[in-house]
């Protein structure tokens, strides 16, 4: 069975500082990987996705993530955060074949302090 672990439930950082949100997954088969962001009282918005090819993927709002197959990780990074990045971030995986559902991590609340 697939599972996703987001190691930090909350991450506070100062504005303009770099940030890394960690995500590890467990799966016996190949997966697609996603990061979604959820602003208060809103649905989820796709930040970026890894399907195949280059292991470094770039997304919206200056975020990027690197797929590391040997460590089964897909950490999200941003070199300089802004107040507007305050939100909940979710890592998710789906099977390449078979079940089409997304399996989500528990989420990381990113708080940007001025």
């Amino acid at each position, binding site marked *: 069975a697939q599972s996703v672990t987001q190691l930090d439930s909350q991450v506070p950082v100062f504005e303009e500082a770099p940030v890394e949100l960690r995500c590890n997954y467990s799966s016996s088969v190949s997966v697609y990987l996603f990061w979604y962001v959820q602003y208060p*009282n809103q649905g989820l918005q796709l930040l970026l996705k890894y399907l195949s090819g280059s292991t470094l993927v770039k997304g919206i709002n200056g975020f990027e993530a690197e797929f590391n197959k040997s460590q089964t990780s897909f950490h999200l990074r941003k070199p300089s955060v802004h107040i507007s990045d305050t939100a909940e971030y979710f890592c998710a995986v789906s099977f390449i074949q078979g*079940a*089409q559902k997304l399996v989500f991590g528990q989420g990381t609340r990113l708080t940007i302090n001025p």
Partner: protein
Amino acid sequence: GAGVSQSPSNKVTEKGKDVELRCDPISGHTALYWYRQRLGQGLEFLIYFQGNSAPDKSGLPSDRFSAERTGESVSTLTIQRTQQEDSAVYLCASSLALPQPQHFGDGTRLSIL
């Protein structure tokens, strides 16, 4: 509108009542998903529709939960005899076939008194 639309945005009901939640997917999206998000937690998969195939109901937590979808259009999630533990945000998503990503609605916040 271009996005996934869910209604109502908020629903408050008494324990034991039935509720029906609605999702309008993005036009042309063949796949539709329902997820549940309890307070402070990630999303739990409930059910998945793909075209005319039999739905994947593996995530439905009990037989009080059911969902329907007419063709590739609107879907309704029904919860019968609601319990307090059903309180959550129910999110709907739609997509083209994998590997295309899922697009989410803003959710229905369900509160059971």
